[in-house]
């Protein structure tokens, strides 16, 4: 980008704005714009399928100039990920586009292999599912849970989302000098309780202590293994048009609870985190459905439901169509989100999942989930459609439609 630095003492010249002041060139409308973007490397797997103009799908309507521009944009969106920043920012850890870019451009580049490539919640090989996750949360203790049960439930859930029966966990602790032992006992007690509830055992671990100021109290990394029934094959790329999208309960409670528990916003609400182990629920769901009917399970953690369904739409090359009216959100979550100007669809859950289920088993799936305490609030919130591939659309409660995209970083409170 070529920017001119023009020091203007005292602020700059008053008076009328000229085109040059605006730094604008004469208007040059986008031309046919079907040519390749300079430097644009398309993600090889699906760029060709996606760039097809509408009319080739059998619509007689000629492609408008706007549509051509929009197609060019879709191509640009699918370019190879590139990290533009020199330093890691908080956005890289928020679960949105920035995280995705970092993972693809740095980690996937370095470690590329067929098991890693789907970037799923865990990897499955030879009937064994394997996953790992680190836990950092401020505050460490919040209504409804703490970093301990989060660390167990999160890894149990990642295994459950692979269709696995979680068996063994590891737990590694990074502790800051000066961290109260009483707090550590409290954390390990809740880990033990969570492990009991999920039916798993913590079988190995590690401890490191770093100097005061080099960590925020306590970080935990857990890894987990579980066994997968060979008949169960779940994948974000398995969704098919007509499938139902089911959420296991009201969304956004964990994220809002933690945000409010930090105290900086001075907002009070009777909310507790939804953190819970979902392996019981997934087992019940898989039992209730015809073989192969459950296409994909994802827990809606960082980035929320919106991010999960976007990943499914992209991986399966399908459209996801959500019904705003059908998405369960508790009033207090909605109130806090309205107040802070954020969208509950992007707020993290730690005990809610999205299930994509073939239409023929959708009723059975919903009934099975509702029969489980952690799925009592389950609801069908949308369906998979064929077109436009890779996009998530929302039918708003108002009766309109809009796109639900992936956020760049955290959903930040806004005033405007």
């Amino acid at each position, binding site marked *: 980008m070529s920017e001119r630095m023009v020091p203007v003492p005292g602020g700059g010249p008053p008076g009328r704005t000229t085109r040059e002041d605006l730094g604008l060139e004469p208007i040059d409308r986008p031309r046919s714009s079907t040519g390749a973007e300079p430097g644009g490397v398309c993600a090889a797997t699906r760029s060709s399928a996606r760039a097809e103009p509408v009319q080739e799908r059998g619509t007689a309507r000629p492609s408008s100039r706007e549509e051509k521009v929009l197609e060019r944009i879709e191509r640009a969106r699918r370019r190879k990920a590139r990290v533009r920043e020199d330093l890691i920012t908080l956005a890289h850890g928020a679960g949105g586009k920035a995280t995705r870019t970092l993972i693809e451009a740095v980690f996937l580049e370095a470690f590329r292999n067929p098991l890693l490539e789907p970037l799923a919640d865990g990897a499955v090989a030879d009937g064994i599912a394997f996953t790992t996750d680190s836990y950092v949360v401020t505050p460490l203790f919040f209504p409804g849970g703490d970093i301990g049960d989060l660390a167990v439930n999160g890894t149990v859930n990642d295994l459950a989302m692979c269709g696995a029966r979680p068996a063994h966990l590891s737990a590694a602790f990074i502790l800051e000098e000066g961290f109260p032992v009483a707090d550590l006992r409290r954390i390990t007690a809740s880990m033990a309780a969570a492990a009991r509830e999920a039916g798993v055992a913590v079988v190995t671990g590690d401890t490191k202590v770093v100097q005061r100021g080099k960590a925020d109290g306590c970080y935990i990394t857990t890894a987990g293994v579980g066994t997968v029934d060979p008949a169960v094959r779940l994948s974000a790329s398995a969704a098919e048009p007509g499938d139902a999208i089911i959420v296991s309960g009201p969304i956004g409670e964990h994220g809002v609870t933690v945000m409010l528990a930090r105290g900086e*916003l001075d907002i009070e609400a009777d909310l507790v985190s939804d953190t819970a182990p979902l392996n019981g629920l997934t087992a019940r769901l898989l039992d209730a459905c015809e073989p192969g009917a459950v296409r994909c399970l994802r827990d809606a953690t960082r980035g929320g439901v919106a991010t999960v369904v976007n990943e499914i739409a992209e991986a399966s090359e399908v459209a996801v169509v959500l019904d705003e009216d059908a998405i369960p959100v508790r009033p207090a979550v909605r109130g806090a989100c*309205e107040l802070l100007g954020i969208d509950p669809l992007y707020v993290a859950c730690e005990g809610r999942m999205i299930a994509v289920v073939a239409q023929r088993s959708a009723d059975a799936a919903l009934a099975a989930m509702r029969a489980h305490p952690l799925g009592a609030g389950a609801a069908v919130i949308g369906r998979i459609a064929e077109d436009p591939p890779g996009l998530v659309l929302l039918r708003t409660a108002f009766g*309109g439609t809009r796109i639900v995209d992936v956020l760049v970083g955290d959903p*930040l409170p806004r005033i405007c």
Partner: protein
Amino acid sequence: MRFVDEYRDADKARALAARIAALCEPGRAYKFMEVCGGHTHTIYKHGLEDYLPPAVTLVHGPGCPVCVIPMGRVDDAIHIAEQPGVIMTTFGDMMRVPGGRGSFLEAMARGADIRMVYSPLDALKIARENPDKQVVFMAIGFETTAPSTAMTILRAKAEGIGNFSVFCNHVTIIPAIKAILDSPDLRLDGFIGPGHVSTVIGCRPYGFIARDYGKPLVVAGFEPLDVLQSVYQNLVQLAEGRAAVENQYARVVPWDGNPKALAVINEVMELRPHFEWRGLGFISDSALRVTERYAAFDAERIFRIPGGRVADPQACQCGEVLKGVLKPWECKVFGTACTPETPIGTCMVSSEGACAAYYNFGRFSRDRVKEATRT
């Protein structure tokens, strides 16, 4: 939620849409500008354009206070934030706004102490809790937000808090609307007026738009039915050959605004002779600064500010988009070089900017979206 859900009713929207379609003269195209970014957000968030006939186009105006902050001011703010002993505070909206040398988020990665606040009073609280630090609040926003900043400065003075100051970037809406009305290539039929600004300034300041420019303006609320109704009221005025200021949002906006809020702004702030708007250039009397009397709370007087100017990038056509001459997708860099992750121009910066809203919510042919969402 009360005063919210009532104005999101799809049945009423359908009825209103039928009225709107009936009011359009055959063969005539209508362009209305929603001045305020909040309205842009409402339009996209609820998919409101699905209710409008093809003859009616909504043009997204300059009313996003984050978007209009020029890059040089962001750099100045980062310069202050990087001074030793400074805690910079601001609204979440500002965190990703790029200046010439990156955004607040990137400055944080370099080590600056920058904190997000919900209210300027929270920044004052941080000052109270950190007496050994200089706490600066980067104030942004139109007349809606300026009274809150002014009240916070008054409170700081009353409490004798010596380590709190404001980097004032408040802007005023009327000169921006006037600049848009005066641009020669503009074709607008009427305005959807900024509801929350009007809670402070009232409806009278818009009088010149109807009187001197012959355009209707309807001050509107932020629920989708509010916006739809204000389109309807604009069309009724045009059909009747009138141009007047009307208040659709009377449940919240008093005709004369909020006198106390105006008084506190006038007590603490004064107009700058001129201020640069990203995408629009310099506009006279269009921004506020802290007065001499409250100099002790004015970051511009406390810190040495570089005051550099960074020209808007050449390729960016935000000026045209802000004036409604171009639709966001008609800009050369829209969606390719300029995206929400890598915004070049003002309109892509905040989620309320015309381009960001279009990119996030509207990007894709409406026909195709409608086809896909049909039950």
